[in-house]
């Protein structure tokens, strides 16, 4: 457990604390296409799900890698690609839609003032890479049954498809008539 800083791996059993990603954002943005679902990945996902042992080894590997790089806690519903590759599940309030109102003027987390708000990381990393619009997506409530699952397998199987709303429902600016209060 890394009690002092917000960087690097932590026990996924511990309560969430903001983690500053170890990986610069440009790298995952550049290679994210390599994980995109295709026939091969779907076959791999089915093969992994065909055996409890295979699935567990795969999920443990995913956990090891993503925990080391992003502080991943294995929610099973990975949103890293649209949060600047900073993990919102390390937010003590596990906010999926942006920072709370308690962020300090110095960028400190309301709950752990010695750590930096993970959503500041997310916003800066997304904006620096021209991905600010990702932050406007409405993130749906997660399925709490997904904890411990491999989000890669879920992604390849298409179970992740509804994680965030796209289209009109996600637009912060729209051309509909003004809301009737």
């Amino acid at each position, binding site marked *: 457990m890394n009690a002092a800083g917000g960087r690097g791996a932590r026990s996924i059993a511990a309560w969430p604390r903001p983690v500053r990603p170890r990986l610069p954002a440009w790298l995952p943005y550049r290679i994210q296409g390599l994980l995109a679902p295709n026939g091969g990945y779907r076959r791999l996902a089915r093969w992994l799900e065909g055996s409890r042992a295979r699935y567990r080894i795969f999920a443990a590997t995913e956990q090891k890698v993503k925990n080391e790089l992003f502080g991943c806690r294995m929610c099973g519903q990975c949103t890293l690609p649209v949060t600047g590759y900073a993990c919102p599940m390390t937010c*003590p309030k596990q906010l999926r839609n942006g920072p709370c109102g308690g962020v300090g003027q110095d960028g400190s987390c309301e709950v752990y003032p010695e750590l930096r708000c993970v959503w500041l990381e997310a916003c800066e990393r997304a904006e620096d890479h021209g991905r600010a619009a990702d932050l406007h997506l409405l993130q749906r409530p997660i399925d709490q049954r997904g904890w411990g699952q491999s989000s890669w397998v879920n992604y390849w199987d298409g179970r992740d498809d509804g994680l965030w709303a796209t289209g009109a429902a996600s637009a912060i600016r729209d051309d509909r008539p003004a809301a009737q209060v």
Partner: protein
Amino acid sequence: MSASPPRPSLRSRLESAQTTVTSEVGPPRGADPEVIRRKVEALRGWVDAVNITDSQSAHVRLSNWAGSILALAAGVEPVMQVTCRDRNRIALQSDLLSAAALGIPNVLLMTGDHPRFGDHPDAKPVFDLDSVQLVWTARTMRDEGRLLSGRKLDPPPSWLIGAVENPFAPPAGFRAARLGKKIAAGAEFVQTQFVFDVPAFARWMAEVRELGLDARCKVLAGVGPVRSLRALEYMRSNVPGLWIPDEVGHRLRGVPPGRVADEGMAICAEIIQQVLQIPGVSGVHVMAPGFERGIPEILARAGLARAGVGSDHAY
């Protein structure tokens, strides 16, 4: 339930071109309903609605819905605050339905303070939904008549849905957009964190207008008096996300000790007048925890006294 609210409801006031005023009453730590009745009655006629907090600052208090019913009974329309801190999506939807059934016409949906700095730091923080998701859930319940599970609600609730935003917290460039997410999710009015820095608030409002959000959501600027130098220090160091620029401290220290509270009220009244000049601001939300009785005087100083009320107030 004795008196019905004497003023137009919050919804109709927001629809009108008139300045809307809301306030806030924190329920007591104790089983005496008189505390709420007294605080609410001091505000009757002065405000369009009164927020009833949800165990504010993660300190256990009488519940939000019970407080809201007591406010209704005392003749002021409540805005029931609901946080994501203590309830999962089952309890949240159940409480929202209950509020509708009990005649609570407005809900204000927020994430809530973390229990770590409350009176039960050993409590489990729930945060099953976040504030945007809770607003979305409420809108789905009301407009689609469905629960998150998809099951039908018969009849669906009809409350006005509110949200909160802090214009002063980093990241500065995302705060108006975050309000935009809440509006896209269903928020119809927003109350802000305390405004002490009017220029910073005006900059945020410019972004709000630039995104066209003021046409889709009514903005109530949060304001409140600083009552003493000790209160100033407490607010600065203990209230998450609160930004008080140095000028406020200079002014409060510049008057004799006996006049600090009065100066705090004067500053508050000035801020009210200034924020109401900003295009897109529909009104103010006055917060004075433990000093609800002083709110009418602040409103009167700001020129927001209303015809037919105030004669029973001592100034």
